């Protein structure tokens, strides 16, 4: 069920582009794209993306919902904001990428589960402790996805441990953990309503 379009876009236009716009809490100006390619040209990880950021905007505009949400592009975004400061149309590209990630996750259309799994584990830790739990996150992540890397990582892991840079125990749960949960649940409700 597509989220409602922002106020100034008429109800007639129920396009994928509007759906994406609605996913982003602020005006991202995504419809202002002139396809100049500055984002794709600036992106440090563009070489590893299925589609350059610019191409994704063209696909969004063309309503290629499935291709867009299955693309690995938003997951390869490193949030460096080069594109955002250089875009001549002042489009907030990182926000669009976050929005696409959220949509893809919600619909289970991610290209492979590594990135969303990482995010989900990270987020679950926050829900549990109110803080992130790096070691727990890494451990779970590697066991699920990077088993073969573990041996090679051992020296680094041991080094970090020896220098006290790795907290083996989970963080102390924040006092307001339950309040935080209530806040997040309410926020989720408001997001679904919009």
């Amino acid at each position, binding site marked *: 069920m597509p989220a409602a379009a922002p106020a100034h876009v008429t109800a007639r236009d129920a396009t994928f582009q509007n759906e994406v716009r609605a996913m982003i809490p602020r005006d991202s100006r995504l419809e202002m794209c002139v396809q100049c390619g500055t984002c794709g*040209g600036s992106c440090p990880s563009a070489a590893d993306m299925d589609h350059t950021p610019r191409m994704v905007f063209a696909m969004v505009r063309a309503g290629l919902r499935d291709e867009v949400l299955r693309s690995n592009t938003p997951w390869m975004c490193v949030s460096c904001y080069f594109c955002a400061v250089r875009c001549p149309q*002042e489009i907030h590209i990182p926000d669009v990428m976050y929005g696409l990630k959220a949509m893809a996750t919600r619909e289970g259309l991610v290209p492979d589960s590594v990135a969303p799994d990482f995010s989900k584990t990270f987020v679950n830790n926050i829900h549990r402790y109110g803080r992130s739990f790096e070691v727990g996150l890494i451990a779970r992540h590697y066991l699920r996805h990077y088993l073969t890397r573990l041996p090679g990582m051992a020296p680094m892991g041991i080094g970090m441990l020896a220098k006290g840079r790795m907290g083996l125990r989970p963080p102390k749960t924040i006092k307001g953990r339950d309040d935080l949960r209530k806040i997040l649940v309410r926020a989720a409700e408001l997001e679904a309503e919009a």
Partner: protein
Amino acid sequence: MSSAQERIGVYVCHCGSNIAATVDVEAVSEWAGEELADRGVVIARNDKFMCSSSGQEVVEKDIAELGLTRVVVAACSPHMHEKTFRGACARAGLNPYLCELVSIREQVSWVHTDREAATAKAKAVIAGGVLRVAEQVPLEPLRVPIHPATLVVGGGIAGISAALEIADAGFAVHLVERQPSIGGHMAQFDKTFPTLDCAACILTPRMVEAGMHKNITLHTWSEVTDVKGYVGNFTVTIKERARYINAELCTGCGICQEKCPIRVQDNVFEAGLGFRKVAYLPFPQAVPKYPVIDGPNCTYFEKGTCKACEKFCPTDAIDFTQVDKDVVVEVGNIVLATGFELFDARRIEQYGYGRLPNVFTSLEFERMSNAAGPTNGRIVLRDGVTEPKTVGIVHCVGSRDRNYNAYCSAICCMQSLKFAHLVGEHTDATIYNFYIDIRAGGKAYDEFYQRVLEEGTIFVRGRVAEVTDTLRLPAEAADEGRLMIQVEDTLAGKQRRIPVDMVVLSAGLEPPADAKETARLFGISCSSDGWVIERHPKLDPVATMTDGVFAAGCALGPRDIPASVSNGAAAAARILGRIQQKEMALEPVRASVDEARCSGCRICNDLCPYNAIIFHADRMVTEVNPALCQGCGTCIPACPAGAISGTGFSDAQILSQIEGLLMVSASGQLREVVPA
């Protein structure tokens, strides 16, 4: 004068469906005829297009046959057709200032959707017009003489074109240029698109003509510092800066330049790519041929020594005692042809201009490619020696970019194509053009694009993201020392890193840095970008809102040479027309001060945006200069004594218009207006 004593004709226009679709025009005209009859309306009609000849004829006929003393037309904005209906009235023998045009289009049908409410509002607007028009008095336009001389500010191609047209027609022109020579940016170029004419070859004959023309007085190395007056009668102060060279004695031999020991980077003519002396002529074909001495960098002025120029000058033309001189001239009209400045490409750090030696701007490239430039026409890297094997030309630098200038600079695509061609002419380099769109709309422009394609230039559709000398290994190891252009090839859908030796940035055009001061000086408006605002972007592209001040060329916004020349000629034509008529009629809608009521408080004095207010200290009263006054009305409410009224905007007129507006309720009914 109460409206009841007049014989008023009300004419309501449908304007096709522009008004009629939202306002019930028939009902409104019927209402006016009936309900406003005891307010003086003797006839009320409506027409599909009141402004048509037949519509106007109806008005004229009614004036003649029904003895109308006032006319109210309810139609579009007065901006559009006030003149039309005033003309109709004048033809029928009624003073045109007894005709009032009220807008029920821009102010009613175009801004409301509720038909009932809009109809009621239209009635109110008309009622306001009816009551107002009764208070209007016959007026005669002011006639001012037109001084036959013209001031042209800016000696680039637009200014020169305007000056020559006027001078050739037999009238005097003062051409003011802040650089030592006329010629402007065009003098810096190598070849011009699309014909590949050598810029200097087509420009210098014009320059010489302007320099030698008996009707043109050149004021170079000069600036306008003060402008007083009004259309037909401007008094302009020109500051002629000290050249330290006596023009009467100077032969232009150039020995002073040769012998001058100090060399500085020439950031003006050579765009920073070369040097000039402190005593210098900006380029060999300079007009006038007299050099100038750059005071701030001159050893004599700094330390009191040197004077090599003086020692060697064969005609004793060096004069260090010269001072700036103010020259006051009277002119009838002014043309602003102040041109553009190049966008400062240093601001876009990711392009590396200023940091990476082999990144050049468009003007630097023009100078490089020019056979008379610092490299004698060789296309070389910053080391002055090495020929590039690959050149990348970058479009849209500082243009079409909300981070810098949102507008398109119009000429850079063609200029970039030209560069591609020139690099190909001078070298064997591989040439890339990086663009978002190819804007080639002019005559023979797209054909030039085809030519450049045929010549083998490689076009990559992508706005360059970065120019860098930081290589990525191991793939780029072989390109050590070169520049890498990082761009998304949008047509291929991939990010590419393309090694080049030289990058040319087609930087955009910007108004001169002091554009806003210039606007203030001449009493005109410029946009937030700094370009001069023309009176109408389509229908009046060379006039400004200030009568008597015109503009031509890039002062109005980025444009190519043909357009600049056309602008210059158009401005000249308008001015020549004025001069021929010897005098001009000005709108009599003006403010005037009732001296008996003026207390001399001077509150109004600083409010006038047109400097039309004069204070007579001897009599302690203020006077409004009717020719300068544009009838904006700012001073009128400011006067605490109510001593200022506007002809065409008197208190009685405005108050009665308000009364008329309030007379009609939101539902369109007439009601009693009880004065407070």
